[in-house]
């Protein structure tokens, strides 16, 4: 039986709302029986329509790395954050710098992070990033000591409302070393 577009849209909206985890297009498609399944394109169109409909609401449907989810718009955080007694721990500069290097330079070793920052990377910072599941070991560099190669995870993208790494703010351009040499001479 073919379902009406309005019904499909309602199912999508309620599924994204009811799911504790973000839902991918595939997961949404799987909710429908074979004969009632909308096309992928139709589903994506309906998601777009929903996003437009929510444009005037305090909630929004956003696509992040793990799929679609409902979230409260950032501008309401001053009020909504009061629902929770303990604030999320503020990310220290050391942690953010370490995370930035891993995100832009992945996969990297700890030694490479230290070379850029000029200080030893503390074990607590790396552990805290692992605890948040923002980074993983993706392999080992085949050099003596086989240092672990670190990379960011989908959870990291989700936490910063990013779909892909390409959405990270661009890294400032480095002035060409040769140009620097010329200026120096």
């Amino acid at each position, binding site marked *: 039986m073919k379902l009406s577009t309005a019904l499909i849209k309602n199912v999508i909206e309620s599924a994204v709302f009811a799911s504790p985890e973000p839902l991918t297009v595939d997961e949404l498609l799987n909710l429908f029986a074979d004969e009632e399944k909308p096309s992928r394109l139709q589903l994506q169109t309906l998601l777009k329509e929903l996003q437009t409909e929510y444009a005037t609401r305090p909630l929004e449907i956003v696509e992040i790395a793990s799929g679609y989810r409902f979230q409260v718009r950032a501008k309401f955080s001053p009020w909504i954050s009061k629902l929770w007694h303990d604030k*999320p721990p503020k990310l220290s500069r050391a942690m*953010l*710098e370490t995370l930035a290097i891993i995100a832009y330079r992945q996969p990297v070793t700890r030694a490479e992070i230290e070379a850029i*920052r*000029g*200080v030893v990377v503390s074990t607590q910072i790396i552990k805290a990033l692992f605890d948040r599941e923002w980074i993983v070991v993706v392999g080992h560099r085949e050099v003596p000591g086989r240092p672990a190669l670190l990379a960011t995870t989908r959870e990291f993208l989700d936490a910063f409302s990013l779909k892909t790494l390409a959405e990270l703010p661009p890294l*400032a351009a480095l002035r060409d070393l040769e140009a*620097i040499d010329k200026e120096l001479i």
Partner: protein
Amino acid sequence: MSVSEFKPSDVLPLTDSVPQAYARVYDEILTQLPEDLYIPPDALAVFLESFEGPLDLLLYLIRKQNLDILDIPVAEITRQYVSYIELMQELNIDLAAEYLLMAALLAEIKSRLLLPKPAQAQAEEDDPRAELIRRLQEYERFKQAAENLADLPQEGRDIFIAHAQAPVRDILPSEPFVGDFSLLLNAMRDVMQRAQLQQSHVVAEGGLTLEQRLQEVLARLKTGATIAFNELFTLQEGRIGVVVTFMAILELLKQQLIELVQEAVFTTIYVRQYGLGET
């Protein structure tokens, strides 16, 4: 006052306001501080903590004076850098070794700049500052990237996930099995009876060991899965297979590696890893 509110510029216009003799007369450093310049030691600790290492401190010194990173006056920067370091040491702040290494590096660069260079080698030899400049630039890029990252909307800080609270739907009771042991034996008898029906299909000797079966059962439950008691048995293995599996289950129970749960008498008994129900 929290660390984040603290601006380094509030505390230490050190090299600007302190006479030149300051850094030279080691013994008199503290007495020579102008009286109006009170620096509480704690504030200095905070000041130092606000730097993420020697590169960060250097960048601060360079930026504070609007100097071009590509053309650092090494002598001047070194002097300022060292005076900060000395003051910190004077106040017994435990300096990371990297700060001292940077001071040594600056001194080396300065001395290399002073050395006359052989005429023909000059073209090939890099400016001694080049490597430091490269590192400063690279660090500054990621310092900026970290700030950009901090500005992104963060889950739990700026963004709050909205979803309906799913009703609690515990399919299995979380209490461990406390029923009559005969229930387990009944279940066992059922399996044995079914195995008997299939026994004629057994052709070769199974060669089953209890040890092996222990591992297999554990492996199936490793993922946190809950498996029906019956499903652990492979009827095609015949009586021996069933007995070995049953012994394995009993042994794992005894070792508290698995636990059995049953919702009500005569319903299916489930097997799972020990302690899963408590979380």
